[in-house]
């Protein structure tokens, strides 16, 4: 059962940051609440205060700014899954959002909340890794921009400071002759494995490729060794090497045995999904 708490409703980022600084461990940011309220109802966490940031204006917009798509942290999964700009300029992101969790979560859960809660079995972080996203973290005294690679520390842990908020996700548009895909597989409510690939072709050869694996281990991670097995090769040679790249990605995914599958099983699924995703992005690039 949910225990009593006080709801604070700041209207600016500095106000929210000051509240978080003032109340420390007894307060927590509240946005969609789809993760936080669940653990609070289960009695796994309790806060005397929740700092509702949904009244802060302009934190839920999606806009394009010099080749970068800026996504407000308070945008819900549902709004992102149907956003016209995303569907036109970054369709892979809108497609991923269409399949986050379930309709109840997508309706109120926010992209910022998903990233900040850092639940290991989540989709957006993995895709954002191959898209080269940067995150804007803000507090009363200023703001900083960090690459998403540096955001996740471990399960449920990020580099966010106690009085800091994620306000914006900045995703560069894919260059010409490029595509990205995100595939996942699971048999429970949350995915067992998620694999993202982005590919840029230069004629018939792989100019750049990025591979990321999520859900299998503690945090989503880029697998640079798998990328090395594909980069610079002709599409045909890269396609032949995809099994080897998949085996590397599986090994390097830091997969762990849990309810979502054994380590070996997850490593195998990483290879299967990587092969499918690579085939898909090659088709899209052409």
């Amino acid at each position, binding site marked *: 059962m949910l225990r009593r708490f006080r709801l604070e409703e700041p209207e600016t980022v500095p106000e929210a940051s000051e509240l978080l600084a003032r109340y420390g461990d007894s307060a927590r940011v509240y946005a969609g609440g789809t993760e936080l309220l669940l653990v609070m109802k289960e009695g*796994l966490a*309790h806060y005397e205060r929740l700092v509702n940031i949904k009244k802060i204006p302009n934190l839920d917009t999606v806009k394009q700014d010099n080749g970068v798509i800026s996504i407000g942290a308070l945008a819900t999964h549902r709004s992102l899954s149907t956003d016209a700009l995303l569907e036109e300029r970054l369709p892979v992101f809108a497609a991923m959002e269409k399949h986050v969790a379930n309709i109840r979560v997508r309706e109120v859960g926010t992209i910022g909340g998903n990233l900040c*809660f850092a639940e*290991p079995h989540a989709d957006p972080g993995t895709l954002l890794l191959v898209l080269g996203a940067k995150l804007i973290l803000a507090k009363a005294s200023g703001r900083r921009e960090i690459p998403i690679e540096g955001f996740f520390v471990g*399960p449920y842990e990020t580099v966010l400071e106690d009085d800091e908020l994620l306000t914006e996700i900045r995703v560069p548009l894919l260059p010409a002759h490029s595509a990205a895909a995100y595939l996942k597989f699971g048999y429970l409510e949350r995915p067992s494995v998620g694999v993202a690939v982005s590919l840029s072709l230069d004629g018939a050869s792989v100019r750049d490729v990025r591979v990321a694996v999520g859900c299998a281990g503690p945090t989503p991670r880029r697998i640079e060794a798998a990328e090395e097995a594909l980069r610079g090769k002709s599409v045909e040679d890269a396609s032949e090497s995809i099994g080897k790249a998949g085996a590397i990605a599986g090994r390097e995914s830091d997969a*762990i045995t*849990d309810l979502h599958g054994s380590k070996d099983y997850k490593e195998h699924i990483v290879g299967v999904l990587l092969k499918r995703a690579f085939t898909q992005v090659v088709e899209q690039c052409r």
Partner: protein
Amino acid sequence: MRFEREIDIHSPKEKVWRFLWDIDRFIACVPGCKEAGTLEAGKSYTATMVEKVGPFRVEFPMRIDVLESREHSYIKAQASGSDSKIGSRMKVELEVNLTGEGDQTKLLLGASVDILGKLATLGHSMIKRKADQVMDEFAGNLKQKLEADA
């Protein structure tokens, strides 16, 4: 989940052995562990483990029972406790092996950690990462304290 660490300590085995039985100094090496007490010297102890991961804070009052010990070489102990607030239990089986000659000791630490209840639903990766951190920090603290005393 099973965790193992091998710690090379520049200190004689006898001194490492005495340190392991000095409950206050030993507990000070375990991150998150506080309020150590002795129920029966050499047999039963108490301590409280407090850990925080992201939004979760757990507090396990533990009872530690020494199951077996061979002087200067081996200790087997079992620790268990419950966090009633979050409805979870922790059980740890701990084995310590000491080998070495002269001023050099090799300490082999093995721990089997079982978490039951709601905390376990958060996933093994969180528990594994935290336990890895605790083991690494403990190994570092133990080595530092013993070598500083040399």
